[in-house]
């Protein structure tokens, strides 16, 4: 029960007025970016990151993670009231949420969404509390080959399990890994891929790339759309909240199932998007009257929201325990940690106990505060959408530029951000996924270091990745996942041949 004591200590660290205030600010900013079209979790965190540079690490990470929670909550508001999913993982919420709003049950749908988000996150945070210390103490025994195998597993699972065309995922990932290597080589001190440019000596900063890829490109993409919208405004009364909560126990199967799916998909880099759809589809499949889905059924809101938030939260588990982010936003939080010289991974639990448990405690508190905050302030946030996009767009551009410049005080970074904005716009339109790129860029140097250290240790023998049971099984699993689509096809082909009568 060491974890429990440390967690209580974490709460004690947090319960100051200053931290609570920062939490509120973070949540409000987060909901704000979640509601606004053209911004979302990763962009919001990336743009607001510079604000936290001058804080101490604990306050900063509390604020950042609250921005993250806020963005998760905010996405639900627009999908229910306006049928516009603020985030890709809110798409499944619109299926039943918007019909509910049309029937005048917006308040009910919103309460359901916020409550299930809360439950989903809570389950995931509980998982983090008890699993993360165990995984990290296990991972303390890892040497460079094991770490490289884990990185390999992450990359391979993106290629094998992703929905995009395989070669496009490979392009995105290798490009990210290559760009991570630009600049001074950390092992030999030699310059690489700088082509004599002094600006490139610093390397390509991860956050600058992210601000461009997500912030600027999102603005360009949003401008393509017709921005007119019509929807419902809703206030939530206490009576509605209580009546929804009274019905909650009826849906416990859905809630548990979705939390489980969410946690599972969040830890493996499958992401919140897949989780929300899977939660919705399973709830539909197991329901007695499937036809009522899509027409304003409250379960259709519970299922995807619980799953999306459980996975959004549990994506932080591998980040904290192993230093491998489970989602794009987690990758950016990881980039933030590195700015303060904190190296996420198993050592974090040993060297910065206060920080880790402060962060975990802030997940509990942030969720409670967030739930209360969104339930009381929904009408205000819904009216943000009245602000014309022509006013919002230039402000976002300015915030992006401030963010990009503040990281290294370099004008070059503003131009770099602009370049990445164009790259992100084009990549998104032709279906090259950005998440593998983000992940590769943030993990590139560590993956390379792990690889080189294991090579140096073994004298250049590739067999080091199969030298013991642990590293061998991780490496083998990685290779299986890489070729999973082929294996899957072969397996289903084989079963079809064995049982031809059934087809």
């Amino acid at each position, binding site marked *: 029960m060491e974890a429990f004591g440390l967690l209580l200590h974490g709460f004690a660290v947090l319960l100051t007025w200053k931290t609570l205030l920062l939490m509120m600010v973070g949540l409000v900013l987060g909901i704000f970016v979640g509601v606004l079209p053209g911004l979302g979790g990763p962009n919001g965190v990336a743009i607001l990151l510079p604000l936290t540079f001058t804080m101490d690490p604990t306050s900063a990470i509390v604020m950042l993670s609250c921005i993250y929670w806020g963005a998760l909550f905010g996405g639900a508001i627009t999908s229910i009231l306006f049928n516009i999913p603020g985030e890709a993982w809110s798409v499944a919420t619109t299926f039943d949420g918007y019909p509910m709003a049309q029937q005048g049950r917006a308040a009910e749908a919103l309460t359901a969404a916020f409550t299930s988000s809360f439950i989903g996150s809570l389950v995931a945070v509980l998982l983090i509390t008890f699993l993360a210390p165990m995984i990290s103490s296990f991972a303390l025994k890892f040497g460079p080959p094991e770490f490289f195998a884990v990185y390999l597993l992450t990359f391979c699972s993106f290629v094998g399990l992703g929905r995009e065309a395989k070669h496009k995922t490979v*392009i995105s990932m290798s490009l990210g890994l290559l760009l991570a290597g630009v600049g001074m080589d950390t092992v030999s001190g030699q310059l690489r891929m700088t*082509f004599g440019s002094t600006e490139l000596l610093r390397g390509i900063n991860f956050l600058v790339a992210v601000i461009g890829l997500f912030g600027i490109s999102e603005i360009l993409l949003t*401008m393509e759309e017709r921005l007119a919208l019509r929807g419902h405004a*809703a206030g939530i009364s206490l009576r509605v909240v209580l009546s929804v909560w009274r019905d909650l126990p009826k849906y416990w199967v859905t809630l548990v199932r979705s939390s489980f799916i969410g946690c599972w998909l969040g830890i493996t880099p499958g992401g919140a998007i897949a989780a929300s759809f899977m939660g919705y589809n399973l709830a539909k499949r197991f329901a007695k009257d499937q036809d009522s889905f899509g027409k304003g059924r409250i379960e259709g809101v519970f299922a995807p929201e619980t799953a999306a938030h459980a996975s959004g939260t549990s994506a932080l588990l591998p980040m904290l325990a192993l230093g491998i982010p489970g989602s794009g936003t987690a990758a950016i939080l990881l980039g933030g940690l590195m700015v303060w010289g904190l190296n996420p991974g198993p050592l974090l639990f040993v060297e910065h106990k206060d920080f880790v448990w402060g962060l975990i405690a802030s997940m509990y508190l942030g969720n409670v505060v967030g739930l209360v905050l969104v339930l009381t302030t929904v009408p205000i946030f819904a009216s943000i959408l009245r602000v014309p*996009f*022509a006013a919002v*767009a230039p402000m976002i551009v300015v915030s992006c530029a401030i963010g990009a410049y503040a990281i290294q005080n370099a004008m070059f970074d503003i131009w770099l951000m*602009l370049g990445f904005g164009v790259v992100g716009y084009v990549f998104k339109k032709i279906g090259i996924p950005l998440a593998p790129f983000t992940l590769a860029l943030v993990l590139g140097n560590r993956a390379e270091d792990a690889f080189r250290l294991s090579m140096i240790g073994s004298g250049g023998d590739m067999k080091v990745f199969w030298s013991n049971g642990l590293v061998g099984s991780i490496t083998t699993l990685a290779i299986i996942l890489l070729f999973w689509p082929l294996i899957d096809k072969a397996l289903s082909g084989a079963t079809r041949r064995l049982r031809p009568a059934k087809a």
Partner: protein
Amino acid sequence: MSNTDIEIVVDDPTAPEANSPAVTSNRVVDTVVSLALLALAITLGWDNWRTGAAWDATGPEPGYFPFYLSIILGGASLYGLFAAIFSRKEASETFVTQAQLRRVMAVFVPTVLFCLATQFLGLYVASFLLISGFMRFVGKIAAWKSLLTAFIFTAAMFVTFDIAFDVIMPKGPLEAALGY
């Protein structure tokens, strides 16, 4: 029915028309991007080869890891090139219509000008110009509203970053004249 139900309606007068002709197809863009990535892979691969991509006494040379990545990138883009050329599906997909491109440029060109202005006039003056200009000329919002919003936003940024949080932004002649 809940009685708090009020409709929120926002119009978009400058929205791109739906029937605007396509500028180019996804196939063309995909082909160009694949070629560009291939060229990048070759350039980076060559540079890493020059740095040293072999083994020496202490282990892999600095160029080793990125060199093989360049090969992976090159291979994937070569595959992508052929996939794009022979893809019927992408040929029928519109990359961008003329009306959409006009709107995208309406935000992209001001952004480029903003970056240029930041270099010479400092970030705050540039941001004031961008916000007020964009609201007035692209959003067709009343001049006083545009100027006021731009001023308040820029001032708020200045107070937050330069004064409260000590995050120093690039400055130009105006700030110098004011003594900052």
